[in-house]
């Protein structure tokens, strides 16, 4: 299909449409609003539901209702709105409901600002809501990936019956690039076994209550087993010039694009820098980062738009095997490639 110039946020809408998402429930917030606006324009053309909910709390509960009814469903928001969705997400995970949430991150805490940040990392990647659950998290760094990963997110959500996040930032949401639209799906997995849907009605129960202590423990262990299988099977990442790298830079989202430029500048100066970009943040590419030392990497620099959230996972993965540093910018600022290269020179005397 033809390539179309579009915003990352619009690309996410197309990803959802092509994935057979039949309902969008959301509440506006910059820099994610174009997702709601795009859905408002496109979904009615296909008799699909677009509804501007009264709040992010309502939106995620509508997602719960649609998902429990066996529909592919999505919502999107940013920082403050994601915070409000946490209880509902916990219910979705606790009731094993597949759904997709796009988080286009902005500056925090509090009202912060609308510039790009990555400070929702902990609340999204570590679970965020109450109870023992995880979100699967995909981190696109281009408009094409906003489309493709949103589509993929629906498959993963179905495969694991769990919320899946597309976690990105204001830069990727707001920028435009050429996007090649994928073909619409021809098949959506059957959910009649567990969903409340169908004629005659499947009298199923969507529920997260387990009054019996042992029942709830068993359910938590089942969830844990699911997340371990996710860790085994769904790790995704991308490398750029890592094979002979002495210094690895680690970053995701818009930062990983800047880091690519940093790597090129460094190489032009003869400094062997390589880029490691986690694509899934949960599951995190732990083994791949743990293997850095064996591949000849000597130093690891994590760059993020948060004051040390991603780096925690990098350090857990490294298990102390390598010197690890952090460089961050926040408040809506994005470091330039040269700024990061200067930091590398300073830190490592290269």
């Amino acid at each position, binding site marked *: 299909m033809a390539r179309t110039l579009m915003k990352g946020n619009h690309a996410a809408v197309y990803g959802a449409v092509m994935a057979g998402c039949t309902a969008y429930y959301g509440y506006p917030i910059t820099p994610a609003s174009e997702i709601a606006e795009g859905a408002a324009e496109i979904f009615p053309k296909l008799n699909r539901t677009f509804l501007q909910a009264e709040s992010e709390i309502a939106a995620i509960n509508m997602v719960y209702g649609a998902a429990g009814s066996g529909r592919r469903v999505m919502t999107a928001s940013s920082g403050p709105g994601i915070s409000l969705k946490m209880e509902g997400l916990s219910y979705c995970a606790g009731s094993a409901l597949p759904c997709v949430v796009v988080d286009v991150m902005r500056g925090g805490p509090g009202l912060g600002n609308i510039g790009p940040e990555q400070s929702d990392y902990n609340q999204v990647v570590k679970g965020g809501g109450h109870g023992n659950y995880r979100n699967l998290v995909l981190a696109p760094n281009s408009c094409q990936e906003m489309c493709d990963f949103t589509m993929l997110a629906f498959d993963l959500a179905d495969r694991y019956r769990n919320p899946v996040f597309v976690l990105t930032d204001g830069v990727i949401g707001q920028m435009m690039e050429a996007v090649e639209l994928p073909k619409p799906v021809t098949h959506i997995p059957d959910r009649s076994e567990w969903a409340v849907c169908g004629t005659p009605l499947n*009298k199923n129960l969507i529920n997260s209550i387990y009054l019996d202590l042992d029942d709830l423990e068993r359910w938590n262990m089942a969830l844990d087993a699911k997340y371990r299988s996710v860790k085994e099977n769904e790790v995704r990442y991308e490398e750029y010039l890592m094979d002979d790298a002495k210094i690895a830079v680690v970053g995701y989202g818009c930062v990983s*694009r800047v880091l690519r430029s940093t790597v090129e500048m460094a190489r032009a100066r003869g400094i062997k820098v390589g880029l490691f970009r986690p694509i899934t943040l949960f599951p995190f590419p732990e083994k791949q980062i743990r293997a850095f030392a064996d591949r000849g990497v000597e130093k690891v620099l994590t760059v993020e738009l948060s004051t040390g959230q991603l780096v925690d996972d990098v350090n857990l993965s490294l298990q102390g095997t390598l010197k690890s540093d952090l460089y961050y910018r926040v408040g809506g600022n994005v470091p*330039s490639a040269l700024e990061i290269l200067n930091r590398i020179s300073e830190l490592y005397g290269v």
Partner: protein
Amino acid sequence: MEKKTVLRKPAGFLDVYKHKPGAEKDRTHYCPGCGHGILHKLIAEAMEDLEIIDDTIIISPVGCSVFAYYYFDGGHFQVPHGRAPAVGTAVSRANPDKIVISYQGDGDLAAIGGNNILQAANRGESIAVFFVNNAIYGMTGGQMAPTTLEGQVTTTTPYGRNPATDGLPLRMAEIINQLEAPTFVARVSLHNPANIRKTRAAVRQALQNAKEHKGFQFVEVLSMCPSGWKQTPVNCLKWIEEKMLPIFPLGTLRDRSAEATPVVRPEPVLEPGKVLEKLGLTEDKSRGFARGTVAEEYSEMSIRIAGFGGQGIMSTGQILAQVAMEYGYNVSWLPSYGPEMRGGTANCSVNIQDDTIGGAEAVSPNMVIAMNRPSMEKFEKTMVEGGSLIYNSTLVEISPSRTDIKAFPVPITGLANELGDIRVQSVVGVGAYAAVTGMFRPEDIIEMLPQFFKGKNKSIIDLNASAVRAGYDYVKNNF
């Protein structure tokens, strides 16, 4: 305890309460004298009589009725505290041929979920709401509810509800009745047989309407809570009669059952061919322009475009990116937004290159298009040595300070004014860019104009075509 024989349960109840843990799968978890059980029975009977058992989805709230799903035969959702109307909204939209019941307590509906019930009612969602007003939080042990009466002692109003600090009881039926959309609004009570009969009628009306998909039904039910009120069941009946009725008058507040029209929701389009057709994506509209020869210095462009808001800065950038895409380049466009967006100035970054694009912001551009003086002053400093600066000489009366860049003063605003429409400035800029870089042929840009100005008439397209030429020719003739 002696085992009693159940003569016959309404068919709307399950025979065996299979979801209920423990051994007692034939009786409810409600306290003796509680009103929930009576209301459950009235609903279950109506489900049987209206023949909707196989089409009913019940939403259980958080509160004493959290376990409503134990008892009813139907599809079930147990949902977060207060959110039943939001969940119900999506359930009814996903299952437009089903009957959706939202069963809620007064803490659930009137406190934590107050906004959700208002908004769902206001949208006229196809939900039948049964609202149990027992003037207290039963589940959590008798705390104050929004419906708690003045002076009523609860565990969180140990000195009695004080209107000065806690407000007065919320009358939800009256509030819902203020809205246009609801079809049926009633307040009934369970405190004696005559009123139970009226409750039965209201339940049936609500469910009959739901069966016909006639929008939003709201039945508020005054109900006893002996455990929460710390009174005997018999005293509770009296307490409703004497204390609650004066504050919560009974009756049908609205009945538009006859006039209401059924909600119809068409099936979503999912068939791939139809999806593409409805979205106008069946044909490949890409043009695939052939590239001319482009000088080495312009083969990989990092462009900053800046000016006042209203000068078409964003669209200049988007047009450059769109045209470049048709020549087969990788492109990116990034608007200034967030902390960058201050003081009525706007800027955007465009990258055009064959390699994968890294950082999208043109931090060190090799091309700046400056539409006003502050933009030129700000961004010429960021340019790489040897880069090209196109500036709007109509508004910028000074020369650039950098001498290691190529400067192209173009009277962009002036040329637009000569064409009679200042709004074509952005397209004049695109024409100038094409001439400086040799990257685009003006006729290719012009070919794409109808796409940029969708829905605009021919005279506007022609005007913009002249603007492309004006910018292009000015550069060709003067540099």
